[in-house]
């Protein structure tokens, strides 16, 4: 598959601060890369270099084979960019704004009209096309920003926190949209919402303090969690102690976490690395005839991996 977006050892220093300290990654066509990291990790700075807004202190950004620089308009033509916070011209209408964006991309006449109509349609802006942008709700503003980013059908989409500040329905809508656009493009989205990564991304890169600390598919990353293979069950609180003791005695059990939920208790039985504990725990439950109302095997938790790679501590 073809690599459409590439970062080669990108660095950005602000005085003594190494905001981005050697980031390399590549995004192929059809891939949605989740770019994760705590606030201040350097996500936005990296994206600004990928779009040519900031000049890297070292390294380079390459889009469809072209090096991105402030002077290289041709490379920028291949990119659709949603800056953090989706800044817009508040005194324009979405119709006027999108027409301006089309013109800036050199799209004219009937083609421009169609491009604007299609982009507006994709994010369902039709009803507000003639309303001033500053009077729109946050969700609609974000959609205007997205429409501007996709209007010229770019090969590469760079979206900085596209769902930040949206309500759950709007988040869902934006994710659906990104998913629908991913087949023909390389997409990179930054976020610190982890469910988004699982819902949307084919790959996740976690950065911290300007460096990559983890890179893999969401499942591969989750597999690094201490919760991978853990068994979670809801049991009557009266039996909880007995179950905990019995479970701890099993081979392959690393520990047990308990959380009360009214007259029941949620037990999470952690597995040692590579140990399979679902069957032994199930047998144990059957043997004692405990009443278990929920039973699930954990695939690992991204938030736990996120925390452990960005703070050095396990959850």
């Amino acid at each position, binding site marked *: 598959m073809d690599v459409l977006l590439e970062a080669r050892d990108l660095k950005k220093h602000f005085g003594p601060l190494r905001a981005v300290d050697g980031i390399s990654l590549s995004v192929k066509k059809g891939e949605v890369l989740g770019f994760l990291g705590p606030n201040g990790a350097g996500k936005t700075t990296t994206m600004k270099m990928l779009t040519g*807004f900031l000049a890297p202190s070292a390294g380079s950004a390459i889009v469809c084979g072209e090096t991105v620089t*402030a002077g290289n308009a*041709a490379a920028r033509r291949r990119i659709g*960019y949603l800056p953090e*916070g989706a*800044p*817009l*011209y508040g005194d*324009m209408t979405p119709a006027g704004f999108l027409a301006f964006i089309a013109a*800036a991309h050199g799209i004219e006449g009937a083609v421009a009209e169609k491009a604007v109509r299609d982009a507006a349609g994709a994010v369902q802006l039709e009803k507000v096309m003639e309303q001033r942008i500053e009077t729109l709700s946050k969700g609609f503003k974000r959609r205007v920003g997205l429409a501007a980013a996709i209007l010229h059908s770019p090969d590469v989409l760079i979206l900085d926190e596209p769902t930040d500040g949206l309500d759950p329905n709007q988040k869902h809508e934006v994710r659906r949209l990104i998913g629908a656009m991913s087949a023909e493009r390389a997409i990179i989205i930054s976020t610190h919402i982890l469910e988004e990564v699982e819902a949307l991304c084919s790959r996740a890169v976690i950065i911290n303090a300007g460096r990559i600390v983890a890179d893999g598919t969401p499942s591969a990353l989750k597999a690094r969690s201490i919760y991978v293979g853990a068994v979670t069950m809801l049991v009557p609180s009266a039996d909880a102690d007995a179950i905990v003791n019995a479970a701890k005695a099993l081979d392959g059990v690393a520990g047990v976490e308990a959380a009360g939920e009214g007259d029941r208790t949620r037990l999470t039985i952690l597995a040692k690395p590579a140990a399979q504990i679902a069957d032994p725990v199930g047998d144990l439950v059957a043997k004692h005839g405990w009443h278990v109302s929920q039973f699930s095997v954990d695939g690992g938790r991204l938030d736990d991996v996120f925390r452990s790679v960005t703070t050095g501590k396990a959850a």
Partner: protein
Amino acid sequence: MKDMMTIFRREFASYFATPLAYVFLVIFLVMQGLFTFYVGQFYEREQADLVSFFAYHPWLYLFLVPAIGMRLWAEERKSGTLELLLTLPVNTSAVIAGKYLAAFAFTGLALAMTLPIWITVNWLGDPDNGVIVTGYLGSLLMAGAYLAIAAAMSALTKNQVVAFILAVSVCFLFMVSGLPMVLDTAGGILPGPLVGVVANLSFLAHFENLQKGVVGLSDVVYFLTVIALWLGINRVIVESKREAG
């Protein structure tokens, strides 16, 4: 060129997106009238010319032109749209020229709205219209020079008020360097030829030349050079502020 027009159109339209533009045009005309008729004693002079009209332009522009230019970059930086603008596939030069020309066109529009006064003198008497034409040309060029300074100052800050004050200050320096008071003081400190240079740098001297009805190439070139210089400075500031975020 096409890119520049795209930027120009958006920028020019944005002046009229709020009632502020109309308020400004009214203030501009009222001030023009006040200075021409009241301070400049247009009627009392009983002369069929626009000397009293043009005479106050350097002072009027000192405040009115920075007011037009202050939002050019400060607003983009404050709202974050600068990032949007500079990541479009448009050259920075086209953005700078497009924005400047939009503000210049707005200034020109304000000046064009004073044309009735020209018609009035022609109706009242028999003025030398050639002098008036060069007067307008000089006025427009000087406004352009003020505006180039205002645009550069606007790129320095996210705060429009600060941009306004900076622009007024720098424009003021460029203007007063030609006043006798300043030149006399300078004459006491600097050698003669340098005083000439200071005087020559002033907007006033070149503006006044054009008010006499002679289109001196050197005066036109002077203003165009000043404009080009400040647009160059504007570019340097925009580039460095882009880096600073």
